[in-house]
């Protein structure tokens, strides 16, 4: 009898241990997601109010030009950031995979930017890219008096400076993931291909890269969520400026919630961001779970 009970407890012990954490995250994550969604349907301004007000805040949001700037920036930034980080990452990984010397040291160097916070990255690149302090000034001091590199202060190009800093930060991480993937490709297959007379290009495009498909998926997911929640990098690098040319949905939401006392619009924009994340994550989870069942 007693042993049966002890066994029952033992069997449920993991559940018992995990449940407080589960309850806390249920409340603090999903509870507040629900709260935010509710606020987005109210007339909340400086203080939250809880009377249903329909879709007015969403109408307001989608009539605000600044929101479109933020959305466009999100697409430009995430597209370039993901594409360039992945391309650089896989390129570096393939080079490192050639069994070179001091690979460990080089790998660490490329991974180091990941150890910095985006605030540090943003501040450093702000100085490097500032026309009066950084690259432009150095080149002019060296005698290239026509050299111009003013992307940071040019509203049309400022968003690309964020791409530069983001890529610098994250491509090493993509490289590490790809490198791990490359190492897991079966050597026998590659050797067999070589015997059949396939050159290195054919080996990579025909065998290795297709075998890395799951790695590609993970890298895209990781980089995409970095891109969507990008806030600190923008704040440190451009402060959303010039004007609001480099606003992102996250900085937009912050500005409306905390600088303008418009909790409703801010909540609506947060819900739109959540929807964007879901649009990416849900198909991923779906395919993963289906794969697991199979």
């Amino acid at each position: 009898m007693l042993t049966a009970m002890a066994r029952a407890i033992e069997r449920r012990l993991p559940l018992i241990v995990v449940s407080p954490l589960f309850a806390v995250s249920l409340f603090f994550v999903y509870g507040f997601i629900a709260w935010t969604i509710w606020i987005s349907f109210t007339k909340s301004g400086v203080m939250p109010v809880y009377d249903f007000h329909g879709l007015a805040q969403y109408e307001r949001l989608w009539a605000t030009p600044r929101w479109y700037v933020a959305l466009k920036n999100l697409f430009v930034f995430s597209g370039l950031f993901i594409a360039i980080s992945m391309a650089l990452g896989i390129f570096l990984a393939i080079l490192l995979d050639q069994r070179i010397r001091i690979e460990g040291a080089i790998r660490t160097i490329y991974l180091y930017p990941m150890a910095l916070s985006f605030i540090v990255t943003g501040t450093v690149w702000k100085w490097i890219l500032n026309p009066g302090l950084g690259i432009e000034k150095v080149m002019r001091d060296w005698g290239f008096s026509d050299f111009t590199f003013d992307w940071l202060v040019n509203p049309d190009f400022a968003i690309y400076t964020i791409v530069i800093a983001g890529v610098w930060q994250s491509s090493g991480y993509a490289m590490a993931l790809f490198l791990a993937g490359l190492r897991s490709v079966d050597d026998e297959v590659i050797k067999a291909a070589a015997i059949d007379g396939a050159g290195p290009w054919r080996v990579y495009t025909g065998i290795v890269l297709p075998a890395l498909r799951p790695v590609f998926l993970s890298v895209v997911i990781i980089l995409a969520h970095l891109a969507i929640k990008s806030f600190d990098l923008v704040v440190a690098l451009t402060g959303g400026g010039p004007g609001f040319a480099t606003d992102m949905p996250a900085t937009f939401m912050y500005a409306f919630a905390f600088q303008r006392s418009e909790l409703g619009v801010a909540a609506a924009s947060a819900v739109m961001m959540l929807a964007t994340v879901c649009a990416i994550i849900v198909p991923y989870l779906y395919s993963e779970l289906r794969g697991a069942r199979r």
Partner: protein
Amino acid sequence: MFRYKTVTPLVAAAGLAFSGAAQAGGTVEVLHWWTSGGEARAVGELKNSFEAEGGTWIDSPIAGGGGDAAMTALRARVVAGNPPAAVQLKGPGIQEWAEQGALADVEDVAAAEGWDAVLPPVLAGIMKYQGEYVAAPVNIHRVDWMWANPEVLAKAGIGTMPTTWEEFNAAADALLAAGITPLAHGGQPWQDATIFENVVLGVGGADFFRAALVDLDQDALNSPTMVAAFDQLRRMRGYVDPNFSGRDWNLATAMVMNGEAAFQIMGDWAKGEFLAAGKVPGQDFLCAPTPGNGFVLNSDSFTFFKVSGEDNIAGQKLLASLIMSPGFQETFNLAKGSIPARTDVALDAFDACAQRSHEDLLKATEANALVPSMAHEMAISRSVRGEFLDLVTEFFNSDMSSETAAERLAAAVKRAM
């Protein structure tokens, strides 16, 4: 907190002894974001005066984000039912909180001391909710100031400060021709908006300013006058150096000080930078109002929140009385660089620019040309102000036409109302 507890019995005893008297001491918690330089010194003056009257001061400074962090903290405190007694809060923000029913009035103090007689009516209106004082102003900042370096002006052969925008443009063109940056400016939305509102006052006059930037009249917002104001702003974009984006205002002031630029258009907190560097007004730097014969008013104030307990209420009333006392208004504003909110304080101890500010304030009040600042959250709610800042900044940083700007401004304001 323990300090509060040890003092409470004493203060309560004092409160019994002098029941009803405002000088009974009390406890006050003050939430503010004056944490740097002259500002911290100025708030220190208030603390010292309060403690000299026998009160207990609980300091709650919250730095960061130009008050955004403090507002977030305030929201949390009010929701939790434990607001501070006094908060550094200004403009229509006072009305927003009053509508939430969070404010306490200090009408008995105000009536006994006759605040109505000594405050400019425009300012008194901002401090009141439904006819009762819920806030007390500590100072008046003038926004429509133009600062200049006389040496730099002399290089381009300019002898006097411009009094119309045409004169300003002519002077700026002369400076450009002489290879000098005419206008020191920092490309941050609030700075863009500061120039914008001064231009609106200069181009349209005080009545137009009120219609467009205070009453948010659609016809005024999308009018030829507004288009003309945007045209002038577009011109001034050409007088700014290429590296202006994101620059802080005090760095722009330093450019004028060091002779790298001729003018800066900025409120009189810029004067503090000049004075701190040991510069003498009229000699090392010049001050003149921007064209327009008006006065754009900015004022810091403390707003009183509903607190409970005899001790806290006594402290709140003492603070209100103290803030409005002539002695405090003088010491505080000497430290902060602004002028007293009370118009009956003598300005003998102040510098020439402050005296000019005071004279113009009286004149503008008389002529009904005193207007509250839009850029500095005196005229309109933060949400509508945000739309102004977005549009003005976008205009300043793009090649948008003035007509489009006026149209889009009217639409944006309509959306936010």
